């Protein structure tokens, strides 16, 4: 098996799939990195659920404003063509099906598209944020997994989630360090596979039966 994809490699792979002109919500953490890999010929409009369309990159040091932050509470900028609005309008956009793609992290994803990404066992006070709204409302829900297999060896792509759900049957696509998978009515379909990894090896790391696309694309980690 070749070196698995880095989080940046995964972000670059996701960015490739975003169509020009898409309205995209990037979840807190790893999904945020996707913004850095958008091809320069493609204009996607980033939505931040705290009331911003046209989110730009982090400001130069010293130019931060406490009034201009993203959903992760980090300072950001606004691009030309952006807009501000209040929280009810922002989630009306989400719930109303106006966001093309919501990209999120996950603890577990099931073969039927069930997603668990908000609550861990033994956690103290629960906190949900906007994840349940995003998965219920966006036209497409894509999940990024930095490691397809947890540090304890347990697969994160499973037949059935054991953790509390964020939403049932909501995930459309999964991007991991080893593969890209689509959630289809017939189960998981692998469209991209890490170079040097064979189908059986991937299947051993996934707790649900896989199908492989005839022209499965090979993924290669970047040199860096």
């Amino acid at each position, binding site marked *: 098996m070749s070196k698995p994809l880095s989080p940046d490699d995964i972000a670059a792979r996701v960015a490739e799939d975003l169509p*020009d*002109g898409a*309205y995209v919500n990037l979840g807190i953490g790893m999904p945020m990195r996707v913004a850095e890999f958008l091809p320069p010929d493609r*204009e996607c*409009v980033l*939505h931040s659920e705290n009331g911003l*369309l*046209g989110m730009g990159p982090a400001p130069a040091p010293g130019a931060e404003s406490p009034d201009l932050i993203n959903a992760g509470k980090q300072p950001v900028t*606004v691009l*030309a*063509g*952006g*807009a*501000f*609005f209040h929280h009810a309008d922002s*989630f*009306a*956009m*989400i*719930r*109303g*099906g*106006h*966001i093309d793609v919501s990209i999120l992290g996950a603890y577990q994803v099931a073969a039927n598209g069930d997603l668990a990404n908000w609550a861990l066992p033994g956690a103290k006070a629960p906190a949900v944020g906007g994840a349940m709204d995003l998965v*219920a*409302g966006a036209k497409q829900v894509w999940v990024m997994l930095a490691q397809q297999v947890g540090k304890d060896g347990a697969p994160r792509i499973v037949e059935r989630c054991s953790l509390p759900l964020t939403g049932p049957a909501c995930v459309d696509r999964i991007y991991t360090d080893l593969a890209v998978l689509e959630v289809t009515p017939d189960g998981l379909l692998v469209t991209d596979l890490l170079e040097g990894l064979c189908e059986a090896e991937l299947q051993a790391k996934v707790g649900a039966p896989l199908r492989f696309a005839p022209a499965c694309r090979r993924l290669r980690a970047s040199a860096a």
Partner: protein
Amino acid sequence: MIDKRCRTLADMLAQCPDLHDGAVLLAGGFGDAGVPVLLLEAIAELGLKDLTMVSNNAGAGERGLARLLRSGSVSRIICSFPRSAGSVVFEERYDAGLLALEVVPQGTLAERLRAGGAGIPAFYTPTAYGTELAAGKEVREFDGRHYVMERAIRGDVALVHAATGDRWGNLTYAMTARNFNPVMATAARSTLAEVRHFVDVVPPELVVTPGIFVHSMLEVGA
């Protein structure tokens, strides 16, 4: 690059995938303010059949919505106040049994559209409880008061009239010509905007309709 500005009305209509027989069309405007007159008149020329129109009024004189009604393309209209000075085309067609009418209280109409745009399939409202317009609708009590359940309205195409717009589709409106336009813009599969003036950028604090809701725009002058 995102650029929602069209050069011609013909281009705009030809590129819209949701203008078809049986389509539900939402048209902004209240009285004569903020009515997408050019779009309505262009659609009258398409020869479509069996359209449903959602609009606060039902047109006046022979322009705008009245012309579209005259074309025979519309078989059903959902509105709060169809009769008004000069609503002769509406009246002719309604009296002749050519036009089905659903009368909806104005605020319920606005809220049903807002719900359609916001992914809310149904809500409860006190409006119309105990009246003929609630006949056959589910009634439910919350905290000792009665409410009527209303369903969301979504359209195939929304037609709006705006004051300014930029290439991303961000729109502003002129005074009370705002009315139903921003709400309808959110509630359709395709939103077509006639815009008085294109501008380079609508400042982000001044945007009333964010471009996410707008699919194409035509500059129509003041």
